[in-house]
């Protein structure tokens, strides 16, 4: 059986998942423009970051 989101898996590296989750929590709590800029920079810094982030968007 596949996962809830099919065979497409975000990276499983715990550190990247933890960082993506920290950003999710940050964005759910009135982020400042500086937070948003840092979040976008984090996503752009590494393809794995974007992949992990996309795991929260499905």
């Amino acid at each position, binding site marked *: *059986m*596949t*996962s*809830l*989101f099919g065979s497409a*898996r*975000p990276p*499983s590296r*715990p550190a990247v*998942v*933890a960082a993506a*989750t*920290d950003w*999710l*929590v*940050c964005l*759910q*709590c009135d982020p400042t423009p500086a937070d948003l800029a840092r979040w976008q920079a984090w996503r752009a810094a590494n393809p794995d970051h974007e992949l992990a982030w996309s*795991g*929260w968007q499905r």
Partner: protein
Amino acid sequence: MSDPVTATPAHDAIQTLYVEHHRWLLGFLRRRLGGSDHAADLAHDTFERIMGVDPQPILAQPRAYLTTVAKRLLFRHHRRGVIEAAYLDVLAARGEPCEPSVESRLIVVETLVELCRLVDGMDARTRAIFLLAQLEGLSYPEVAQRTGYSLDIVKKTMSKALQRCFSVMYA
């Protein structure tokens, strides 16, 4: 008869347990399930679970042991039924024509069961924070105010809980 290549004392003990008590266990499960077809599956799962126990216990009262293991599986079976019914109720309440495939339904229900298990396994503080945020829809500052924990603790707790949800969703 034992396979001379793979037989071990533990293997022989389980085989004896199966031969002597499988029919009785099946009857026990049929009575509990009202004659459901799931009885045979649960009996199989019970022995499979017992085979995974290492080291194998020495059984003074094998039927009591079988009953204990089978009751746990029955509880999970009933709980899964409740979760599946709730999921179908939500789909029906949407009022949209939506008929998930058997596989999709199985995956969603399995995921919900795992998430329920995850919530059950949380400590009291994490569970309280997680449920207030995810089920009641409170903002993190509101959760902090309601629980008396600092906003920083609420955010760190949510981050850890959500990481575990993430691993369940993509398991």
